[in-house]
């Protein structure tokens, strides 16, 4: 049994520690020890489900998960429907207590963790998030009503990425929180994760030959994210990610996509992420996070 300690803060940055540790499991059954987790954002939660699914694929056995000891954290995970989805990924016996834990009060999530398998799921997600998005984006992020539609379009396109390109199930979640330490503002975060074929696998048949030896996870991400290339020959394909980049840039937000051993990002001035990284720990599929910061009256960029 390989014991993997889940980082105390679980987000798109610390996910790299999790992925690297998972790579060291080398096909053994895994125990994800999340007892000391103190905070997780939507990327951390859907990323943990994805990591559990990968551990299951590699070892052939359902991994174990030890739920957070902190009552607040466990309640939050319950409100985000994490344990409901975890029961399909992790060994259910250890989750029994967590699953019995009642979610304290109404969920304050923008979108609880939701499985994405089909176009119908995408319709459902877009429909479900509409009213909450209108209230939250307007009141907490000071976005105009038109931004709610653009938010839904982003949500639709990131979910479709799973349906059309992953060839596997994925999960989506969205939440708002005060990102005091990094940004000093409220942010809305959308995260999507799948463990499917990833960008390199999806684009290989159509584009790998042209890149020759340079073909890699990083070049596949560049091709899709920067140049709008798609696995399909039709010229109209690949516009979804381009549209997301455009919307997110308008709000001075950030988009980060991880696939295989690389990640690419549209980085705003408030962050210091490198725009492209390669040589990361191998992790299948694609994981996307979109961060939209609160708008303030003296901002030059207007949503």
């Amino acid at each position, binding site marked *: 049994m390989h014991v993997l300690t889940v980082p105390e803060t679980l987000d798109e940055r610390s996910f790299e520690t999790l992925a690297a540790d998972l790579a060291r499991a080398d096909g053994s059954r895994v125990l994800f020890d999340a007892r000391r987790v103190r905070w997780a954002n939507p990327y951390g939660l859907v990323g943990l489900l994805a990591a559990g699914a990968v551990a299951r694929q590699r070892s052939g056995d359902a991994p174990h998960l030890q739920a957070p000891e902190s009552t607040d954290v466990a309640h939050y995970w319950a409100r985000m429907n994490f344990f409901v989805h975890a029961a399909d990924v992790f060994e259910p016996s250890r989750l029994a207590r967590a699953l019995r834990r009642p979610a304290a009060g109404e969920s304050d999530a923008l979108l609880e963790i939701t499985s994405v398998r089909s176009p119908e799921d995408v*319709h459902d997600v877009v*429909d479900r998030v509409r009213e909450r998005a209108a209230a939250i984006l307007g009141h907490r992020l000071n976005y105009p009503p038109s931004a709610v539609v653009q938010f839904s*379009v982003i949500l*639709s396109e990131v979910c479709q990425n799973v349906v059309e390109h992953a060839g596997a199930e994925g999960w989506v979640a969205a939440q708002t929180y005060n990102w005091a330490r990094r940004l000093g503002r409220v942010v809305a975060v959308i995260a999507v994760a799948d463990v499917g074929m990833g960008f390199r696998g999806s684009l290989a048949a159509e584009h790998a030959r042209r890149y020759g030896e340079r073909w890699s996870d990083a070049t596949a991400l560049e091709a899709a994210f920067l140049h709008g290339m798609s696995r399909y020959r039709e010229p109209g394909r690949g*516009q979804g990610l*381009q*549209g997301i980049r455009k919307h997110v840039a308008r709000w001075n937000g950030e988009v980060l996509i991880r696939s295989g051993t690389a990640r690419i990002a549209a980085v705003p001035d408030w962050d210091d992420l490198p725009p492209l990284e390669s040589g990361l720990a191998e992790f299948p599929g694609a994981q996307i996070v979109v961060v939209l910061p609160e708008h303030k009256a003296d901002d030059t960029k207007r949503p």
Partner: protein
Amino acid sequence: MVEPAFIDLVALLRKSVTTLYSDLVTRPTGRAVRLGIEQQLGSAPGPCVSVIDFSQVGILDFSCADEIVAKLLLRYRAADRPAEAFFFLRGVAEHHREPIDCVLDRHGLLLGAEVRTGERLLLGPASDEVRRLWHGLEELRRATPADLARRLGIAEPAAQAGLAALAGHRAAVQGPAWQYVALGALVSGAAL
């Protein structure tokens, strides 16, 4: 005679994919709606201007805009088009514009539309002169290149070339005796 054919996208969406949603999202949804439009056009007795109504549409994403708007225009612009059809959008909201403009730009297509304020616009990547010609033709409803050249203060060959380009994009109809007819006029039931 070019007859108008009115297509309510949300009614068609509910019929094509048996859903209660009013959002046009995902590529398969767009494909189903486009096939529904093509089916309706296939049963038209002759040439028609298809008025695609966005009034009840909530969200339109890029994938759906590509399937419904761009692919429809491309198919009916092709020499082997299945029927003689022109397209005009109605009830287009501000938030529909971005995905529609994006797919028209990507494919180099032009399309006339009436937005929710009632204003008529030529969408897509047109030069200023072609855009002025389109607006001029919409105002006059039908005109020759000479008529528009006089009205807009441009050379007649330039008006001729611009109108031919609009007709090539099927954003205007070339009628008899060098007359061009605005799609907006045909939508209102004017004869060719």
